């Protein structure tokens, strides 16, 4: 303030600024911020908050897009939980997918990051190679490739045949179909790996030197130094990957041809929601499904944050 009045050398202007009208003050203080925020604000109100409220309302209605919504109370939710085997099937599939794909992917990512963090030569090349599947993996093309790899006459079975094993048809067997999607997810461990690598670099090297002078084994160093100091990164990765896993859609859609078959074994929650909304035009029911998904993700996130103070190590 003083610097500015000295600079301009106009105390009159300063005095005027202390007694302007309310509107002038708002214009001067708040308007620039809101003008810059305007596009986001319009989007936030018009494409996020407004639709959220509408969606919540629609979840209590029957709505087929052509006639106006019919209020049905909590019927959608009641039907979902008490009388919809497909809902439970999709819930099981999604939970199974999240519970297996996320920890395995993170374990892989951490293991490779630790190998890369040994100061080896060629780090940028390895890092890039491992990252490539993450970048390409979300594509329809990769889902198509996966469908061919695990088909009955696909690549995996061809390799197995070379060692004399007759492989099953991985995609059309309900016992293995979901695992092909889990493997696809693990294959894309590159981006959490990069985040782990950045986290590992923050750990002071002298901690390991001190520990090995004290005769601590590599495993003990990992459990007592690496893992605790890395928990913020583990926490971050786990949250991001879990939310991503809940939202996953394209691979299951492509690999099952949009059906979620065989026997609903790849019927991801998002796929079921898509079918209800854009296959059967049950928009009310689909909205209710969306709110249950949001509740699920929120409970998970809240649980992670609440428990984080017991296991996430924050360095002050």
């Amino acid at each position, binding site marked *: 303030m003083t610097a500015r009045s000295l*600079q301009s050398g106009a105390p009159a202007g300063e005095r005027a600024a202390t007694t302007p009208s309310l509107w002038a003050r708002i214009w001067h*203080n708040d*308007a*620039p*911020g*809101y003008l*810059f*925020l305007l*596009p*986001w604000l319009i*989007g*936030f109100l*018009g*494409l*996020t908050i407004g*639709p959220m409220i509408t*969606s919540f309302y*629609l979840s209590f209605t029957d709505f087929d*897009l052509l006639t106006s919504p019919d209020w049905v109370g909590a019927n959608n939710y009641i039907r979902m939980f008490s009388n919809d085997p497909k809902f439970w099937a999709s819930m099981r599939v999604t939970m199974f997918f999240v519970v297996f794909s996320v920890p395995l992917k993170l374990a892989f990512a951490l293991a490779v990051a630790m190998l890369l963090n040994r100061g*080896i030569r060629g780090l940028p090349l*390895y890092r890039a*190679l*491992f990252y*490539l*599947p993450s*970048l*390409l993996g979300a*594509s*329809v*093309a990769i889902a*198509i*490739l*996966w*469908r*061919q*790899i695990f088909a009955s006459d696909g*690549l995996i079975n*061809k390799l197995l045949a*070379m060692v004399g094993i007759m492989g099953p048809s991985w995609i059309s067997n309900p016992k293995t179909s979901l695992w092909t999607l889990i493997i696809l997810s693990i294959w894309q461990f590159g*981006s959490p790996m990069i*985040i782990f690598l*950045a*986290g590992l670099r*923050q750990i002071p090297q002298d901690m390991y030197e001190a520990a*090995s002078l004290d*005769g601590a084994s590599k495993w003990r160093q990992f459990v007592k130094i690496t893992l605790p100091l890395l928990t*913020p990164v583990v926490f*971050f990765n786990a949250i991001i990957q879990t*939310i991503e896993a809940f939202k996953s859609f*394209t691979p299951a859609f*492509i690999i099952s*041809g949009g059906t979620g078959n065989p026997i609903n074994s790849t019927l991801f929650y998002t796929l079921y*929601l*898509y079918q209800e*909304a854009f296959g059967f035009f049950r*928009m009310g029911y689909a909205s209710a*499904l*969306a709110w249950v998904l*949001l509740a699920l*993700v929120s409970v998970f996130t809240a649980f992670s944050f609440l428990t984080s103070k017991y296991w996430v190590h924050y360095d002050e």
Partner: protein
Amino acid sequence: MSDASARLTVVTGAVSPTRKRITTILVHVALLAASICMLYPLLWLLAASFRPENEIFTSASIIPSSWSLDSYIRGWNGLRTGFGTFYLNSFIISGLSVIGNVMACSMAAYAFARLEFRGKNFWFAMMLMTLMLPYQVTLIPQYVLFRQLGWVNTFLPLVVPKFLAADGFFIFLMVQFFRGLPKELDEAAQMDGCSPWRIYWKIILPLSTPVLATAAIFTFIWTWDDFFGPLIYLSEMKSYTVMLGLRTFTDSTGESDFGGLFAMSVLSLVPIFLFFLFFQRMLIEGIATTGMKR
């Protein structure tokens, strides 16, 4: 004293140079094996797209016995509308998305990182909340809204949200970067009578090319890859994106023409791969810095 030094030699002696060397070699072997496993499917796809049709499913090798472009020619014209149209559509949508996202997100990020206004913390918290929101919750009303506006079957539902900074991730990315720029620059400019707009345009943006480029590249790749948006909003084949075209290929001719399908799959990955080739450093740093909460 002598006891301690003895222990010291024991400890350092345990990691002899030869043993260290063996470990390094083993690490390289493990990493190389893992790289090959990771890349094998991609290389196989690439090889399959150049194989003569009758050889595609008989070979697991990644080197075709003879090279042929037949699959590409067949695939390119395999649908009623050619892939050329799909490419053009994808480029238009991705290009516009990049422009919209970089503009709108950098403006919002500048407001959050540099300007003071009432309610800033509240809006920032709201922005962070949208990062965790599953898009399904807003999906149906957005669809209804865009339908009422007559936007279904146009690119607008896919592009307009980008001009409204709908993807908070990029705002977050830019806020992190802008906060790292020295504040003295703004203050000096402000004393010289620069408006916030000029500071944003003449100082912040020119200094932020790394983060703007990262955001642009990620926006391009994610929009290019997007399947769900085009799936629900584009129903006429002439407005299809490459990803939708590929999916239609699997439905109609895909079961008989794997060569064409593979060739088009490879082509659909080319733009992403080029970004990877030329900008991988930027992409990797972008991921690493957003991962670190600072």
